[in-house]
């Protein structure tokens, strides 16, 4: 009996061991992920986490994310909703539920996937900036006053970059500057209000940003430095007539000469502001100039191109950022012959061929470097397809729907512009060439345009771009007068495939042929945003 009693004791001990496991046993114990307070211990780690980390969002490996380089995001809205390029339907290829046709024909609906992707990406980026602001405030004691000012400036400038894309694409959008907010408190601001917000943010941040090259290897590689912010303010000022217009569906728009913007200590009108920040870019100690040839900007290793201002750093051995623009354009066998993959998609519109004077005596010298057209040659020899035919890109055979066409797979001039990088991997999506976002040629063209709009001559800046050094060897480089019309076309020729054309079309009044289509200048507020935040109101024309 005593034995049994002893056994009971054992049971009791065992039970109590099990019953009192202590709180620790049921507490989560993460190792391969860590709460922020474990990671942020020094000023460096805070800088790393709150500021540097944000740059991972400029480019992307994920569909719909990044400013450029991946599918179905901002770049596709800017490019395929313009008349610069098209992804035609090629039988079953690129049908995609009419997605690309909706962009081309401006028949998108609020449930459009790309429209939603860009919204989510930008607000996610903004949310991360807001979180960085929270972190910088929470752990402010780790920082000196100057570090705090610098870091918050860089974060707010990045946030302003996102808002710039938002007012361009969606017009009326909510201004959100904190994470600690309930969805019920998130409402849209007028477009001009958002514009003022962005401008003020950039004005406040600008003095604390570094005056350094961003496109070059080194401490500021890929960062939002002063010249980048100056470029951004030029874009804002240049488009101020559009982006300060709270009702873009009427015929009226504000006059750039009366839109006053604070530039450092001065009040300037929009066009003066463009020139003011053009000068700022030029006078940067970074030293920007046109490259001797446009193709230098897009060379395999373009980090030293003196023309590039802001890029998405690429290096197949280091970064994840994808560049799919070439990949999706080239014919399967063309790409295969280069050691890449191809998806036989995007190509130049007929309008673009006309603007470049394709296959005419006046063909612009930039056509050959911007496109593949006609017989495709690999190392000089024509490329033979597996059915025995020579691969010929039939530039003029492009149609929105190529199904049933004998040129279903070969119609359209394909994207080139970026140099062929033999070291590219993942079908050429990971490559060395940095993706060019902002460059100096655009600075000059913006200045030329602002001057002409002010009633001054922009010929000098215009000629610099049109007759850059390399041009003197090209007979096709016929001088043109710097009229608004010619500036519009020069931008097209120079900035083809760079994601600016939709903005230019809107600013030059060429985006909608009918006044009642003016509402199409902005995309609808995405269906998913309206569904999840009932405060949001749909843009005019899409209700």
């Amino acid at each position, binding site marked *: 009996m005593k034995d049994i009693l002893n056994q009971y004791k054992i049971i009791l001990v065992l039970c109590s061991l*099990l019953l009192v496991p202590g709180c620790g046993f049921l507490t989560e114990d993460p190792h391969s992920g860590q709460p922020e307070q474990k990671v942020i211990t020094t000023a460096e780690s805070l800088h790393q986490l709150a500021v540097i980390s944000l*740059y991972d969002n400029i480019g992307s490996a994920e569909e719909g994310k990044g400013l450029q380089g991946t599918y179905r995001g901002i770049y596709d809205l800017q490019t395929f909703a313009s008349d610069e390029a098209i992804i035609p339907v090629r039988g079953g290829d690129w049908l995609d539920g009419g997605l690309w046709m909706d962009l081309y024909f401006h028949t998108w609906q609020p449930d459009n996937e790309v429209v939603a992707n860009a919204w989510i990406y930008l607000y996610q980026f903004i949310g991360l900036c807001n979180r960085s602001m929270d972190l910088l405030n929470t752990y402010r004691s780790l920082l000196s006053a100057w570090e705090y000012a610098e870091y918050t400036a860089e974060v707010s400038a990045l946030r302003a970059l996102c808002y710039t894309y938002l007012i361009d694409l969606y017009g009326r959008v909510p201004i959100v500057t904190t994470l600690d*907010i309930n969805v019920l408190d998130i409402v849209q601001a007028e477009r001009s209000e958002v514009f003022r917000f962005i401008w003020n943010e950039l004005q406040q941040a600008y003095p604390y940003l570094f005056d350094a090259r961003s496109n070059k290897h080194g401490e500021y590689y890929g960062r939002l430095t002063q010249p980048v912010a100056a470029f951004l303010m030029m874009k804002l000022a240049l488009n101020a007539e559009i982006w300060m217009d709270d009702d873009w569906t009427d015929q009226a728009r504000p006059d750039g000469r009366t839109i006053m913007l604070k530039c450092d200590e001065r009040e300037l009108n929009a066009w003066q502001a463009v020139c003011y920040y053009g000068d700022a870019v030029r006078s940067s100690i970074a030293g920007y100039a046109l490259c001797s040839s446009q193709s230098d900007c897009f060379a395999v290793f373009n980090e030293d191109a003196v023309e590039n201002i802001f890029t998405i750093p690429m290096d197949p051995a280091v970064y994840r950022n994808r560049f799919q623009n070439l990949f999706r354009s080239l014919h399967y066998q063309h790409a295969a012959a280069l050691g890449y993959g191809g998806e036989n998609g995007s190509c130049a519109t007929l309008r673009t061929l006309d603007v470049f004077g394709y296959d005419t005596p006046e063909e612009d010298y930039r056509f050959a470097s911007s496109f593949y057209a006609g017989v495709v040659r690999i190392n000089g020899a024509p490329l033979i397809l597996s059915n025995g035919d020579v691969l010929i890109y039939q530039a003029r055979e492009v149609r929105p729907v190529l199904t049933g066409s004998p040129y279903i797979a070969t119609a359209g001039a394909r994207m080139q512009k970026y140099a062929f990088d033999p070291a590219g991997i993942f079908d050429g999506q990971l490559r060395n060439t940095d993706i060019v976002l902002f460059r100096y040629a655009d600075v000059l063209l913006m200045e030329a345009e602002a001057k002409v709009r002010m009633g001054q001559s922009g010929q000098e800046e215009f000629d610099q771009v049109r007759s850059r050094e390399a041009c003197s060897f090209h007979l096709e480089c016929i001088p043109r007068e710097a009229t608004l019309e010619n500036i519009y076309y020069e931008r097209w020729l120079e900035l083809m495939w760079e994601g600016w054309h939709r903005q230019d079309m809107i600013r030059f009044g060429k985006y909608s042929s009918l006044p009642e289509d003016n509402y199409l200048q902005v995309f609808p507020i995405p269906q998913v945003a309206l569904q999840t935040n009932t405060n949001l109101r749909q843009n005019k024309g899409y209700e």
Partner: protein
Amino acid sequence: MKRYTSVIVQLAVVTLIAVSPAQAQPPEPESVQGIDAVKDTLRVETAKRGYLSNALDVLSGQTAGVTVGSNTNPEAMLSSVRVRGNHSLTGGNEPLVIVDGMSSDLRTLATIFPGDIESFTILKDAAQTAQYGARGAAGVIEVRTRRGSTGKFSISYAGDAGFTHADKFLPMLSADEYRRVTAARGLHIADEGADTDWQRVILRNGFVQNHHLALGGGTETSYYRGSVSFSQNNSIVKEMGTRNFTAKVDVTQHALNKRLTFDLGLFGAIGRNQYINNVQKLFYSAAAFNPTFPAERNSSGGYDGYADASQINNPLGLLDIQKHNEAMHFNTHLSMQADLGLGLNLRAYGSYSYDADEDSHFYPTYMESTGKVYRGAGKSNVWLASVQLSYAHAWADRHRLEASLLAEMQGRVSTGFHTTINRLASDAFGYDNLSIGALRLWEGTGSNWEKQNMVSLMAAVSYTALNRYSIGMTVRGDASSVASKNHKWGFFPSVSASWDMKREAWLQDTEWLTGMKLNAGWGLSGNMGGIAAYHSLMLMVPTGIIQAEGLPDVVLGLTRNANPDLTWEKTHTANVGLETSFWHNRIVFTADYYYSYIFDMLYDYTVSVPPFLYDKLLANLGKMQNQGLEFGFGIAAVQSKDWDLNIGFNLTWQQNKLLSLNGYYKGEYLTAPDYTPIASLNGAGLHGGNTDVVYQIPGYPLGVFYLPHSEGLAPDENGDFVYTVEDLNGDGAIDLSDGGDRRVCGQATPKVLLGSNISVRYKQFDLSVQLNGAFGHKIYNGTALSYMNLGSLPYYNVDRRATDKRINDLTVTDYWLENGDYVNIDYVTIGWSLPCKPEWKLRAFRLSLSVNNLATITGYSGLTPIINSTVLDSTLGVDDKRSYPVSRTYSFSLQIQL
């Protein structure tokens, strides 16, 4: 209460006794061989089963409410077992597997040699699943492995060997027909001059074998059993197959006059698997790849692709992609059971499992740009300790009280790491030397560490009055580290009752009625499958790499919204059941009805960005219901000295309905879209757009077909035909998108499931046939949609019949929606048992021949209706160019016992 309502599948593949049941073991007076209606269990002897590829195969068609996916794709099969349908949208649909008291999973179960398993107990009723608390909602499979028994030494061998042969293929155009048809349509083809039947080129005759050796013996107070097994299954697809080796030892020791019992078990398994890298791509390529290409390597040792057919590749090249897996499992457990007297019993149990998995993938340079190698390893350590005190007391010969208390702790640590290399200098090294790659991308390398702990307490009490009225109650409390801070503990009660009517005076004298019992229960159980460790926390993880300050720098970030209120899904289940048997169990009939209501169901909601950082939030707001009727029927039609005829079948009717996904989270109304696609078609011409087929729609069962309606074909301007599409909403325009001209037109999961076994014995010969069937569901024949489209030419080959129909259209309509009903002859086995005399050394000897997958009776026009009709994933209900050619396995087996 478990044993009253559980269905036990008893295995006797190499059962020493059951090898020759008629001779070795005199039939108990109340039992029927084959369908043994002892009390409330259906025992199915599997000595007469066909070839078993693994232990999961055993469950197929044997019990009502349990479904097991097709065994042609071994990888997919590992996650396909379902008990009473689907219970969750986010995971946690796999039943909990308990092997000898230790929580385990289907993968581990599949490594156990069927002959080492004594019984499967499927727990599905309310009171049973509630006993497993937070983990029981998706059903529980309790597995008891064989251990020793008293008696003299015995040794047994069981083995089988056979081959698998494919004999049904898709009728694609031959090379000559392809040349003719493309020429007639004015299409240029790449003609390499050969004539290749790619579907056959990638296949071989499969080879299967199983060998199992078991020995055991002992005395009254100590006994042991040990076994080793080896299984090999070389699939019909070249290069692919699985191998498994196991070893198992169990020792039982009694002490103190059997008042103390120790059980020690050791089990180890090593499996080597060679999987198809991408099943759909392989079979799609085999059907549609250019038949004029030769089936041989090119001059550089690779295989030529066909760049224009971007969705497929050279089928032989695809076979060169290696996806190898090596899995090691080790378990040991020790239990001590003490009879403390006074009806008290104490059991202490400890168990430890170690799992190691290594994946090695190799993509040659001619199959993936610049080539790629992936190596990854994962390990998990699980320990469990429990103490159970039980009390049983019977009095006055008519009353019985049982009670128990259980305390249990469990810990799991999982770790893993992986790396990927690119730009291979040579294809000759396979995955064996990682230095062959020039690039190691940042995102290609990583490691992880994860811990999950659980504490459980359970109390159970049951009381039987007058030998016929029973009532039982359990309450289990579970606490898990993965549940959010505010919801650590969950309590799961259950109540059950049963009434043994046969013992009532008014039935006692009814000769023909052998037994009749009514039972009912209610219980609450949980489901943790949808929550992973740390899901409720905001954690920083490496998310990318950038260059800062001149050097590459890793970026830390968040990856999802954290929901601090995350908790387990919960299920209320109620059931009633009737068990009857007649004429001394010559006829057995059981019927069960259950209803379960799932709430706090997890769903990944789309939320507003801002204020959220990410557009998805996992939250507990959904509701779903399941109900079903299950019948079991067994008849021993003939029982004589020379003849036996037994027929058994089980029939399940089940219905699922997604009730709602809406609710409030922190004042914000969250709602799921009206139409959420589950499964879509893909392949050439089917990228995006309106190619979704199977949907999740609140108010309907999970997995309904929601499609535009086609009345048939109409000529197009080129003399081909297109599918007509009805304007279902009558707005004068055709809108193929969700919410437009579409309608719900059937469900992907079967409404009725049938499993049936017929066994006949004539003297020493026996014959056993297993039939499985599924009814009331539909299948989308996406394979036909793709291969009947002449527009796929010239880059993709088409079905021979396409030239008659002349369809040039890929619009997804209900034109190719077909009835999925089928009856499948799962196996037929013919055996002969030597009538061993007691004085012989040889105790049992049996030979048998089996054919697995003999035939399928169906109206479905595709290769086979046996596709994924159960698992909620992107293949549910859709036959889309991924079915294996239909094959049969012929095997011979031998069983000897000394």
